[in-house]
């Protein structure tokens, strides 16, 4: 039997890449793959987040569960998460913070002893593992000068105290959004805009101006030298159809044709800082591969296919 394959070879082009943000083009694949990547980035790439909190003393104005919830939402650096274990799969321990494979322990001790309000932030969380610490947003923004103190947890007045132990575990966004490494992941079809030059040349300048202005986003403009309508930013088009409707009302249907390229996508990825944006995409590809691997047929299922008889066996090369 000849080797059949319908494999595509996607092409990637990075437009912009920062630690927590990236924009790239993905071509030569279809929307199902683009959407699978988006869904996996949001809900299935693992990170580490605080999952269990033991409060020793809390005399702050916020109640215990309120603080526990806030702690859970603090992004922790999770480069290690891909190689960690889920605590439910960890045989070596019971996920109590002592196990290096599946959990990380944090301590927080803060007491206000002065008249000024004390801000308790993510910087006050002391980690037992230097690879898993609260995300430093100054580092990401690249400015060391500003005195930004981290994620606010609670404010204490004189005499109030907060003392707790927290355990961070590996998890995925499907379980709880606190584990999602993605702030936003979006993709759009690349628009392809064609202007019928002959028809356009016959229009008056006012008509051209009204066409340019009919688009809510700045997609078109008038070339100052040639006085022609030109596309200045195709990607600003939001698929709103306003220009098309305008042309219809002018009786100039077909003057501008806008198509979505079905195999070409522009991705925008923003992370919470738990992992780098580029790493998030790579992790998503890896997770998607693992998911596909998990849905392969097992050998005993293949045996059950014998019911297909001689023809089936013949086709399988048997």
């Amino acid at each position, binding site marked *: 039997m000849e080797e*059949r*394959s*319908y*494999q*595509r*070879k*996607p*092409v*990637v*082009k*990075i437009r912009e*890449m920062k630690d927590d943000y990236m924009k*790239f083009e993905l071509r030569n*694949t*279809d*929307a*199902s*793959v683009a*959407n*699978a990547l988006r*869904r*996996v980035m949001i809900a*299935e790439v693992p990170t580490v987040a605080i999952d269990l909190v033991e409060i020793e003393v809390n005399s702050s104005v916020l109640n215990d569960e309120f603080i526990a919830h806030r702690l859970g939402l603090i992004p922790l650096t999770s480069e290690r998460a891909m190689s960690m274990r889920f605590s*439910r799969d960890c045989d070596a321990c019971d996920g109590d913070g002592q196990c290096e494979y599946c959990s990380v322990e944090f301590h927080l001790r803060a007491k206000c002893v002065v008249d000024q309000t004390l801000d308790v932030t993510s910087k006050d969380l002391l980690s037992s593992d230097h690879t898993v610490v609260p995300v430093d947003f100054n580092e990401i923004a690249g400015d060391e000068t500003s005195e930004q103190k981290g994620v606010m947890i609670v404010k204490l007045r004189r005499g109030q105290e907060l003392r707790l132990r927290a355990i961070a575990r590996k998890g*995925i966004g*499907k*379980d*709880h959004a606190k584990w999602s490494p993605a702030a936003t992941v979006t993709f759009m079809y690349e628009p392809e805009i064609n202007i019928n030059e002959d028809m356009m040349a016959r229009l008056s300048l006012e008509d051209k101006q009204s066409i340019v202005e009919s688009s809510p986003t700045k997609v078109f403009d008038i070339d100052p030298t040639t006085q022609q309508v030109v596309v200045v930013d195709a990607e600003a088009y939001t698929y709103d159809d306003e220009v098309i409707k305008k042309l219809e009302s002018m009786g100039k249907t077909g003057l501008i044709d806008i198509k979505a390229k079905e195999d070409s996508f522009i991705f925008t990825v923003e992370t919470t800082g738990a992992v780098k944006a*580029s790493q998030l*995409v*790579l992790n998503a*590809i*890896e997770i*998607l*591969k693992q*998911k*596909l*691997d*998990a*849905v*392969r*047929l*097992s050998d005993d*299922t*293949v045996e*059950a*296919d014998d*019911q*297909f008889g001689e*023809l*089936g066996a013949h*086709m*399988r090369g048997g």
Partner: protein
Amino acid sequence: MNAPDRYERFVVPEGTKKVSYERDTKIINAASFIIEREEHTIGNIVRMQLHLDENVLFAGYKLPHPLQYKIIIRIHTTSQSSPMQAYNLAINDLDKELDHLRSAFEDEIANYSSTREY
């Protein structure tokens, strides 16, 4: 109160098979694959990949109910192939596509980083 545990959505219970196969008794070369604890992410990419296969006459998936954490992929092929063959081919092709995508992405990151001071 009686809400199912959140992990129920993605942890396959012990003693349950991830993928089970059910042949159609009335139509030759038609079958359903029941995949536990998966949803649109897998369902849609497998379906679209199956559509590229010219021996596949029908391929579709459904999520029968939002609280039944499984999908059903139904495949009908010509006599040149079988649902199982088409299913395996689709998964292999997707796997290869993702391998390609990963290396393309890694190359592009290296390329981007070297052209810019990053």
